[in-house]
């Protein structure tokens, strides 16, 4: 069996950044394995601009952003395989992958899973009605348009105000389609503000808040949909349904981590994110298996994926190069009031006094919130933040000495009226 120090599964923005970072932190023997015929992951189909502003300080398209990282990878001569699917990983840190040259098993000192995310489909949100052709996730329609050069329809309705849906609203309009409207079940949009303005408002595409698609209609091909109003608990209000004629329904109703490989290996699952449970090294419950990017939790921007994965590459390098210090205390992290999830799930402290990073999302829109870390109801750290939204991930770091010798902390957000 071949030995490799670090195997990185997935060559999207997370895999690329973690590979580069692991290399720069001293691990030279790296293999990136990518299922598709090119590196870059989802970025390849995101031909709009807006990437890189935060990290690279310039505005790039998705492929340009990916290209930047692919170049960095190549400069370092990091090995990668394309058209190769990882079929299995296990707790002995063995990786089985297949491609047209055969099936191979390799043994690693560490594995980073950077598997990306799935889009939720109409079946996962239980939309009733017929099952005609004409209903797609926004990402799939994006791929057909940007990679293959085809529109899937001309009269389009969009469910969900996620960013991919908003971007597709603009993109399809520019391609001559009639985008009839966007329904959002919540009282607020889930997309970034700049996308609401630039993708909907600028094209006079209406956004209907507190509405949802209550029925899909069409025998073989989509003939239309019914939309209905919803109440404060997102339940459909009877007799508010109205028919909208359209040939395409795009769904932008959320992304969730793709994590079957990790589950199968026995890494404990995080039921709040659908990713794996991790510690502050981004290590799963199996030593040596790390996870990052949208395969861990869904990020708002690719820049943040890259940033996170730089850290993860470094953490994996520390394990491989035996640079880890002994753990002196270990604690669990719980999400409490107004926090829909928080990462990491456990924190392992050593005496090198490294800072601890937290990633979390607020459950609902809050104008002014106090973000608190508590131990036994005692605040050990807090700060005030304005305009909290579920669509914007909250990130912060604290000094590790605040946490020494604790067994448990709670993270909560207090709404300040």
């Amino acid at each position, binding site marked *: 069996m071949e030995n490799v120090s670090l195997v990185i599964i997935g060559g999207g923005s997370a895999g690329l950044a973690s590979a580069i970072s692991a290399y720069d932190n001293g691990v030279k023997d790296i293999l990136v394995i990518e299922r598709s015929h090119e590196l870059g992951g989802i970025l390849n189909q995101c031909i709009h601009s807006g990437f890189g502003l935060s990290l690279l300080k310039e505005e790039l398209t998705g492929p340009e952003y990916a290209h930047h990282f692919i170049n960095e990878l190549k400069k370092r001569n990091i090995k990668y395989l394309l058209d190769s*699917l990882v079929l299995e990983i296990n707790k002995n840190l063995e990786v089985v992958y297949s491609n*047209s040259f*055969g099936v191979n098993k390799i043994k690693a000192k560490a594995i980073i899973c950077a598997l990306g995310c799935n889009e939720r489909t109409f*079946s996962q949100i239980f939309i009733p*009605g017929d099952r005609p052709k004409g209903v797609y996730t926004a990402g799939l329609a994006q791929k*057909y348009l940007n990679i293959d050069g085809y529109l899937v329809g001309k009269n389009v309705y969009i469910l969900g105000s996620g960013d991919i849906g908003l971007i597709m609203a603009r993109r399809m309009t520019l391609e001559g389609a009639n985008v009839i409207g966007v329904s959002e079940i919540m009282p607020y949009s889930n997309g970034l503000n700049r996308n609401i303005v630039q993708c909907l408002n600028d094209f006079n595409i209406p956004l209907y808040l507190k509405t949802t698609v209550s029925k899909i209609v069409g025998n073989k091909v989509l003939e239309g949909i019914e939309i209905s109003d919803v109440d404060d608990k997102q339940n459909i209000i009877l007799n508010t349904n109205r028919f909208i004629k359209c040939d395409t329904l795009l769904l932008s109703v959320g992304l969730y981590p793709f994590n079957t490989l990790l589950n199968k290996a026995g890494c404990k699952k995080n039921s709040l994110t659908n990713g794996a449970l991790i510690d502050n090294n981004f290590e799963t419950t199996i030593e040596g298996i790390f996870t990052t990017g949208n395969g861990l939790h869904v990020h708002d921007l690719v820049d943040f994926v890259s940033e996170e994965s730089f850290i993860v590459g470094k953490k994996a390098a520390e394990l491989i190069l035996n640079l880890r210090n002994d753990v002196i205390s270990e604690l669990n992290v719980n999400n409490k009031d107004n926090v829909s999830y928080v990462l990491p799930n456990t924190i392992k402290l050593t005496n090198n006094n490294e800072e601890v990073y937290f990633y979390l999302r607020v459950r609902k829109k809050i104008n002014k919130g106090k973000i608190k870390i508590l131990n036994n109801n005692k605040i050990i750290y807090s700060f005030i933040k304005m305009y909290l939204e579920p669509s914007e991930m909250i990130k912060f770091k604290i000094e590790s000495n605040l946490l020494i010798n604790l067994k448990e902390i709670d993270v909560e957000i207090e709404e300040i009226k």
Partner: protein
Amino acid sequence: MKKELYDVIIIGAGVIGASIARFLSRFNVKCLILEKHNDVGEEASGANSAIVHSGYDPKPNTLKAKFNVIGAKMFDKINDELDVNYIKTGTLTIGFNNDDLITLKSLKERGEINGVETSIIGKDELFKLEPNLNKNVLYGLYAKEAGIVNPFLLVSGLIENALENNIDLKLNSEVIKIEKIMDFYRVFTKDKGIYETKVLVNASGRNGDYITSFIEKPKFKITPRKGQYILFDHFDDHFINRPLFMCPTKMGKGVLVSKTTSNNYYIGPTNEASSLDDVSTTKEGFDYLKKESLKLINNLPIKDAIREFSGVRANNNIDDFIIEESNLNEGFFNVSSIMSPGLASSLAIGEYVSNLIQNRLNLKINENYNPYIRKYPKFNNYEKLKDLININPLYGKFICRCEKVSEGMIIDMIHRKGGPTTVKGIKKRLRAGFGRCQGTFCQEEVIKILSRELNIPIDEVNYSDLGTNILKYRSK
């Protein structure tokens, strides 16, 4: 214009038409199957519970009882010949109280009359078989001989084998008119086809009475009833191990919880009056299924739901299968309105009807008949996968990551007789697009492979029926 005369025309390529054709191919016969859809098995045979019932349940002395009991026993052999993923899981019918126990006992007796062995088991044994049952369950009727099957591969395998043995198939050929002319039948299809045949078999499922009415007044009336399902991903190999039915009560048969041959789980079906082709789902249906199924199991993996769908049962006013040669019109065989347990009975029906036809036409044995189809390129271990890759490197290039389907497997399937030409056809036979992402990752690649292998432009690749091409308009 002189038409060539067929010995047999079969209307409908569901499991019944497919099975008749396949068993008929044991003889030297000129036979054509006419199917209105763009693929085989698109109606009831593609949306059902996929259970090979053992046969204790149907009323004694009915056609259902007769063909179910014989048919169920034929699955071991067909599995060997056609690789239909048949698994003898057994089934459990669950009782919750003493009234149910009485019902279970009477079902057991009924089974004895039908010639099917079952046993009644108590709570301890139930939980040994199924640890995730609801804690309120008390009794179970265990039918060891029952099983589950892959209904898609059953239909496509029967069809492939029939075609390999010289039967013909025409898709997109909806029969719209039939004329009886002396001793043969003239069949007209919507696409302006005209065919002539000595024997005509109506295997049109829920359209059976309508098709019959082209020739004679039907003796039965179909009352379609819809069944909705919720399907879950394979999150755990042993959430449940076999189909679980509720003990029938005055209120009906309840719902069932089951697993598929690929370790997915489902709950369903509802039982509602519907129109013939109404395969829609409803919120009421979902709510009902979620509530009822929790009587059988202790939790529902709602987050793992990946698909909701419906099938339409071809129930009728006689409450039994229609399997007969018309006494008014010689050579017209009615094998329609085949409701549950039609799948379990399909092989027995196919064999029986093909023998009747052989008799009527005095057909000779087909000396070249081969009951096997080419083995599917499957792998259950990496050594096997390596062997496949040695044959064709594309077996190692995976297209569908949810269900692990490689390009080589897709190509192999496309080039079989009666093979898929649509995205849905690939999905049904190979599961690419059937998994958690529902094709958001692989559908595009599947379209490209279909286009290349069938030599048609990508914008002519259909999702299912004609006119359902996905890539519609070229971008600017």
